[in-house]
């Protein structure tokens, strides 16, 4: 029975590691400036975790294979060489080095996204999530958003942001159902929710942030690849949660200018 | 305790060394089970109160403005309530002392006095609740500002009032049981722990709810 356990465990370990290493299922291709650093961080963590995984599982497999009791077995038990001491040292060295490596060296991505302010020339877009759609608002030429008035939100007349029509700051705001940004230009998103906790998940940009009602949460990133990407809601928000998505379109600067003019004309 | 041998009475052999062994039963911590149980209950209940107080602090700090409606009359009323509760704690101390000296009627008398303090506290408190309700304070609204004022006020003082009321019933049960000599002095002491704890909680609620919301002159 112990031998069988050793064999099965070795097979499980091999297959698990092989699938990870083959990268058959892996992150979608990076399309943002900071994304590469995150993938790098993942690979570093993976190497550390894989060493621990393989050593622990194989040690377990070998011990189970080797130390099964036979009939009439009278061999004396053997205490682990060095007793507890070396295992303690191993644990502290292995986990300790991981902590130092991951925690203090590896948090650049987090710091870049959340500790540093967005570039001053960032394109600001406001996002409003509600059951079960995202809407986006561009400030227009004046660079200002009028406030959101919850009581003025009216889907029927397409006033998704609760804009007060008499407010001069809101006059030139452009509201869209799709997020479009020019490539290689920093973007700052101001995330709002009008009802539930929602999530804002942009896989290729390596961006994710919960959206809470009552708070405006800023995040920033720089897209580097032209293309159309999924924006998924990733915080349970109700029965249509699985269907709540929007798209991010990263365009060339010229295409973006054309697009925004066209959107402005639709307001 | 059913096992009554002295401490460190047996000797066990381990690894060739003779080790003194604790004799079992009540030692080494010498805390009667009921008392320890009540202490643990108090720890856990204190954490429940702390969570509610944390919620209050969290929301109060986040609020742009928090009402400060309590006039001098309210503060005086709350001070009287505090005084009544503190006096009842003194009565409780005397009840515990009497019970440990075996003075049954004295202990029962002081227990009833303690419970009476609790009843007076409750009456004063309910009177104040009714007054505030008459002024239009509700868990979801009040005349002065953020509706969370009423929510926090009623939740915190209500939770405390439930504790006082339970305490009154508890003390009376103990008084009857001790009077009939069915319960021991330890039971009185344990009920005392609970009562002092309820008092102590009020010592947090009084400044946090009342004094911090007193009307500024």
């Amino acid at each position, binding site marked *: 029975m112990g031998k069988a356990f050793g064999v099965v465990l070795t097979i*499980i370990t091999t297959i698990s590691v092989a699938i990870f290493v083959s990268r058959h299922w892996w992150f979608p291709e990076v399309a943002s400036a900071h994304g590469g650093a*995150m993938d790098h961080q*993942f690979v570093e963590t993976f190497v550390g975790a894989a060493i621990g995984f393989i050593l622990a599982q194989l040690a377990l497999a070998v011990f189970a294979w080797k130390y099964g009791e036979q009939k009439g077995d009278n061999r004396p038990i053997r*205490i682990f060489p060095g007793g507890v001491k070396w*295992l303690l040292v191993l644990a502290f060295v292995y986990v300790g080095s991981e902590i130092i490596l991951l925690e203090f060296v590896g948090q650049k991505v987090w710091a870049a996204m959340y500790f540093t302010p967005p570039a001053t020339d960032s394109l600001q877009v406001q996002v409003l999530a509600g059951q079960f759609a995202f809407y986006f608002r561009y400030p227009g030429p004046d660079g200002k958003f009028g406030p959101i008035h919850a009581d003025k939100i009216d889907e029927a007349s397409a006033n998704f942001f609760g804009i007060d029509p008499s407010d001069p700051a809101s006059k030139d705001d452009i509201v869209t159902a799709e997020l479009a940004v020019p490539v290689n230009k920093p973007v700052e998103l101001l995330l709002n929710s009008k009802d539930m906790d929602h999530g804002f998940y942009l896989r290729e940009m390596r961006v994710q942030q919960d959206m809470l009602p009552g708070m405006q949460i800023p995040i920033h990133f720089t897209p580097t690849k032209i293309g159309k990407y999924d924006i998924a809601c990733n915080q349970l928000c109700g029965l249509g949660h699985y269907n709540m998505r929007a798209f991010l379109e990263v365009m060339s600067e010229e295409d973006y200018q054309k697009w925004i003019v066209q959107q402005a004309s639709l307001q | 305790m059913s096992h009554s041998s002295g401490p460190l009475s*047996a000797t066990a052999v381990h690894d060739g060394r003779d080790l003194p062994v604790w004799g079992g039963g009540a030692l080494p911590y010498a805390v009667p089970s*009921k008392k320890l149980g009540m202490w643990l209950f108090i720890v*856990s209940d204190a954490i429940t109160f702390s969570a509610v107080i944390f919620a209050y602090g969290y929301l109060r700090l986040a609020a742009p403005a928090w009402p400060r409606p309590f006039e001098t009359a309210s503060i005086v009323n709350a001070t009287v309530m505090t005084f009544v509760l503190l006096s009842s704690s003194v009565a409780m101390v005397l009840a515990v002392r009497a019970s440990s000296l075996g003075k049954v009627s004295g202990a029962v008398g002081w227990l009833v006095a303690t419970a009476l303090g609790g009843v007076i506290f409750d009456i004063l408190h309910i009177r104040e609740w009714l007054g505030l309700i008459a002024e239009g304070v509700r868990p979801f609204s009040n005349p002065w500002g*953020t509706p969370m004022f009423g929510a926090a006020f009623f939740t915190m003082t209500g939770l405390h009032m439930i504790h006082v009321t339970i305490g009154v019933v508890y003390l009376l049960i103990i008084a009857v049981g001790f009077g009939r000599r069915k319960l021991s002095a330890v039971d009185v002491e344990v009920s005392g722990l609970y009562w002092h704890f309820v008092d102590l909680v009020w010592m947090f609620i009084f400044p946090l709810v009342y004094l911090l919301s007193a009307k500024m002159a």
Partner: protein
Amino acid sequence: MESMPMEVQHHHTAPTSFIRKYVFSVDHKVIGKQYYFLAIFSVFVGMVLSWLVRIHLVWPNIHIWGLGVLSPTGAPGGVMSPDYYLSLLTVHGTLMVFFVLTTAPQAGFGNYALPIQIGAEDMAFPVLNMLSFWVTFLALCALVATLFVKDGPPISGWTAYPPLSAVGSDAGPGLGMGQNLWAVSIALFCVGSLLGALNFIVTTVDLRCKGMTLMRMPLTCWAWLITAILSLLSFAVLFAACVLLFLDRNAGTSFFLPAGLLVNGKLQNHSGGSPLLWQHLFWFFGHPEVYIAIVPGFGVISHVLSVFSRKPVLGYKVIVGCLLSIGFLSFTVWGHHMFLSGMSPYSGFLFSIPTLIITIPATIVSLLWLGTVYGGRLRFTTSMMFGLGFISVFVTGGLGGMFLAQPSLDIFLHGTYFVVGHFHMVMGVAAIFGMFAGTYFWFPKMFGRMLNEKLGKVHFWITFVGVYCIFMPMHFIGLEGMPRRYSSFVNDAMQPLMPVHTFMTIAALTTGAAQFIFFFNLFWSMYKGAKAPDNPWESTTLEWTVPSPPPFDNFGGKHPVVSYDAYEYGVTRNGKDYIMQTDPPGQPASS
């Protein structure tokens, strides 16, 4: 308040009526079994629910017999709707976390074995113990009732984040009556757990028999003691949170609800609260809860590995120290559930430090288990197989935590199937393996008969391979960024990954089916199994010195005296390779 339950009932006589003996019993052994069967019922229902949600993910249009009768609105004609998927997911999570993982290892096995292992006749407060069980039973009734009320169970998940859980039925199905019942159920569960925890601590401190010093207690007792402390401190907070949630829902307060909520076109009459507050309170409970589920497993596994390796457990004192430090650290890490919640990113960074540090004691314990197995004379009973399996799944699941502990990586992995795979492996499967190991180990003592080992081995192999097939692929699709709690991926960028889901569903159905072998074994052996001797596993601790099953007062009026540590294996004495804890002091133990 009737505080009489706090009576220490020594030398109580065995009850004779059926009700006092089996229903409202104050005997810790009966209460332990009651908790155990409550958990068995819950795990059965929870497992069937997990089948239903997995089936719906993969075959959304399938007709499920009987489901249309249970919920004509949620599953008209037996075809599950997307919202019913979320309803069942909520009940699955709540049942499993509270009524299985919190109940069976701690309240079930703990109640049964703790007093016997420390040489006591019963728990310190037997009547309070009975109350704890019946309050927990009521909590279960309230939760199961959600399945039968109009609109069904809440769709807000087991974490019940507001505003979804707090604004009422405007927000979706099940958020009216169902969510109220959920809050009542959890509040009751907190009360039951608090009373139980208090009882465990007092019992361990006060009722140990002569010679049973703290450092001679079996590691199981240490684990139950530390878990009880965690329960005492953390359930108190969840209780407060549930009260506030209930007030928000029914008294119009706004603890968790900010101003300007526009739900379903209706402006809500709430303002001044914060949904983040719930997350703080919930996870302050929620992270210790993970250890409440797994620490009793640590105890059982340390115990079982030592018995069946015929070796003293390696580093007894170190394990005790690790359990204590895990318990302490578990109160400092709750923020790692909230990295992306909108809380200050600086706190996110700070919370990740204790989160990584807590892996040190967990790693040490795992290494010590390996060191215990090393060089032993392993007896591959079913209990031992689950013990070995526990190490494997715990290591696998735990390493996933290395990724999730880092806010940098959480930006991608948060809310994906990587998280689902991680916590199922490390908290669900590992804790359940601990329960299986405990069941196969203590069943002879509890019921006086042996479980069938052949069926047990079949059960083990399918389960062990099965859980890897279910939960390992979740990590892979998590890397692709597949969000959890989606009832469908039609028209979604994730649609191409559906074959992986099909594979996992088939694995889940198979592994689930294998549990029927276990259920059959359990109930068949209870009546037809081979008679169990007093000490079938040649184990050293006190429960094996008494008959199987033990008499009403455990030790038949005798008072055991302990002279030895809990794990004296691998010695030679009177032709045996172990020394019972109660053996008379004599020749030193030699190994």
